[in-house]
C-alpha cells in the first residue's frame, strides 16, 4: 500500500476517535465511529488474502450494524425527549440499546462472537490496532453512558465477558485468538467498574493497552502466530523470550507485575461497594485466563521442544524491526506496579 494512502487511513483513524471523544451530539459521535470503521477496513484487507478479506467483511457487518443501532437509539431518545446530547440520554430502551450496541462494537461477552475470528484473519500489526486503538472511541461513549445505564446490565456484561474470555481462550492454540479472548476478559474488567468508578476503567484501559501492545509486538518480533512455533522462540530472541513470559503473567494479573494493579484496585472498589460475590467471581474468572497465559509461558520458556541442530541458529540473523517501542512497552508492562499509590490518588 502506498505511504500516502497509509497516511490518509491512519490520520482518519485518529480523526474518527478524536471526533467521538470531543462530541456531545450523538450524530457527531456516530460519525466518528463510522470514520473509524471505514479507515481500518483497507488496513485489515491489506494483503487480500481470503482470510483477511473475510475478517474485514465480518468486522464491517458487525460494526455497521452496531453504529446504526447507536444512532437509532439516540433517535428514539430524541423523539421522546427532544435531546441529542450524550449526557441527556434518559429513555430507558434507548440506553439499553446503546449499551448493547457499544458492547457489540468493542466485543463484550454476549455479542463478542465476531472478535476472535476477525483477530485471527489479521496481521499482528493490524491486530494490535484492533485490540487497542479501536476500543478507545466506544469506551469513551460507554464511560459517558454508564451513569444512565441499568447497573444490572453492566454487571452482567462484565461478568459474562470475564468468564467467556477465560473459557474461550482455554481451547485455542492460535495466539491471535487467545489474545482476542484475553481482550474480551479485560474488557469485562473494564466494564464491571464503570458504574462505580469510571477513572478505574480508564486505568484498566491504559494498562491493558500497554500490556497487550507489548505482547503483540513480541509476537511480531518472533513472527509467530501459533503456540507450537512459540516453543522455538528462545532460538530467535532469548532475552525477549524470557521477558515475554513475565509480560504474559502480567496480562494474567500476577502480583509483582503491572497487570496486578488494575485488578487489585477494582477488587478493592467492588468490595467497598458491598459486592463481595461479584468480586469473588471476578477473581475466580481471572484464574481461567491465567491458565492459558501460563500455558503460553510454558510453551515459550519452560520447555525446549525437540529440534534439529540448525533450527537453533536464527539468533544470528540481523533483526530489522524497530525495537524501541517494544523495549519501552515491555518495561512498562513489567514494572508499573510501584506506581499504584499514584494511580490510587489520581483515581480517587
Amino acid at each position, binding site marked *: 500500500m502506498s505511504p500516502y494512502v497509509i497516511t490518509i487511513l491512519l490520520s482518519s483513524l485518529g480523526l474518527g476517535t478524536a471526533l467521538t471523544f470531543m462530541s456531545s451530539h450523538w450524530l457527531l459521535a456516530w460519525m466518528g465511529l463510522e470514520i473509524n470503521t471505514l479507515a481500518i477496513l483497507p488496513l485489515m484487507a491489506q494483503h487480500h488474502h481470503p482470510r483477511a478479506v473475510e475478517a474485514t467483511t465480518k468486522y464491517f*457487518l458487525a460494526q455497521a*450494524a452496531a453504529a446504526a443501532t447507536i444512532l437509532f437509539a439516540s433517535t428514539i431518545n430524541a423523539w421522546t425527549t427532544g435531546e441529542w446530547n450524550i449526557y441527556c440520554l434518559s429513555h430507558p430502551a434507548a440506553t439499553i440499546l446503546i449499551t448493547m450496541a457499544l458492547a457489540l462494537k468493542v466485543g463484550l461477552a454476549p455479542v463478542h462472537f465476531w472478535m476472535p475470528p476477525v483477530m485471527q484473519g489479521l496481521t499482528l500489526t493490524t491486530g494490535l490496532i484492533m485490540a487497542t486503538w479501536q476500543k478507545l472511541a466506544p469506551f469513551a461513549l460507554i464511560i459517558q453512558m454508564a451513569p444512565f445505564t441499568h447497573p444490572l446490565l453492566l454487571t452482567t456484561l462484565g461478568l459474562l465477558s470475564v468468564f467467556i474470555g477465560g473459557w474461550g481462550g482455554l481451547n485455542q492454540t492460535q495466539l491471535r485468538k487467545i489474545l482476542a479472548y484475553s481482550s474480551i476478559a479485560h474488557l469485562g474488567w473494564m466494564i464491571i467498574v464503570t458504574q462505580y468508578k469510571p477513572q478505574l476503567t480508564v486505568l484498566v484501559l491504559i494498562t491493558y493497552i500497554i500490556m497487550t501492545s507489548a505482547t503483540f509486538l513480541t509476537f511480531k518480533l518472533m513472527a509467530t502466530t501459533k503456540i507450537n512455533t512459540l516453543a522455538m522462540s528462545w532460538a530467535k530472541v532469548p532475552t525477549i523470550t524470557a521477558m515475554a513470559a513475565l509480560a504474559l503473567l502480567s496480562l494474567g494479573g500476577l502480583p509483582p507485575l503491572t497487570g496486578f494493579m488494575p485488578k487489585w484496585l477494582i477488587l478493592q472498589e467492588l468490595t467497598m461497594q458491598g459486592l463481595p460475590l461479584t468480586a469473588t467471581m471476578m477473581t475466580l474468572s481471572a484464574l481461567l485466563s491465567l491458565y492459558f497465559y501460563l500455558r503460553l509461558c510454558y510453551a515459550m520458556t519452560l520447555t525446549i521442544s525437540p529440534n534439529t541442530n540448525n533450527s537453533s541458529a536464527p539468533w544470528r540473523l540481523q533483526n530489522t524491526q524497530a525495537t524501541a517501542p517494544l523495549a519501552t512497552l515491555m518495561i512498562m508492562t513489567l514494572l508499573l506496579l510501584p506506581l499504584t499509590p499514584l494511580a490510587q490518588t489520581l483515581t480517587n
Partner: protein
Amino acid sequence: MTPVYFSFTSAFTLGLTGLAFHRTHLLSALLCLEGMMLSLFIALALWMLQLESTAFSAAPILLLAFSACEAGAGLALLVATARTHGTDRLQSLNLLQC
C-alpha cells in the same frame, strides 16, 4: 406512539432483524443495512420537520453522505469477497471459525 414514530421504528427493527437472522447473500445483508439507514434518514428528517428545528436540517443530509460511504465500502467488500471466495454467499465465509 404516533404512526410516524411507529413506522420508522418498525422499519429499522425489521432491517436489523433481517440482518441478524437471514444471511444468505452478502448483498442481502448490505441491503438490510441500507434499509436501516433509510429508516434512520426518514426518522431524522421527520424529527427536524416536526420540531421545526431549522438548525438540525443538515443532519439527515450528513447521514445520507455517511451512509453512502458505508454502502460503497460494503459493495467494495462484496467485490473483494467475490474475488477471494468466488461467491457472495455468507455461508462460504467459513475460514475463520472458532
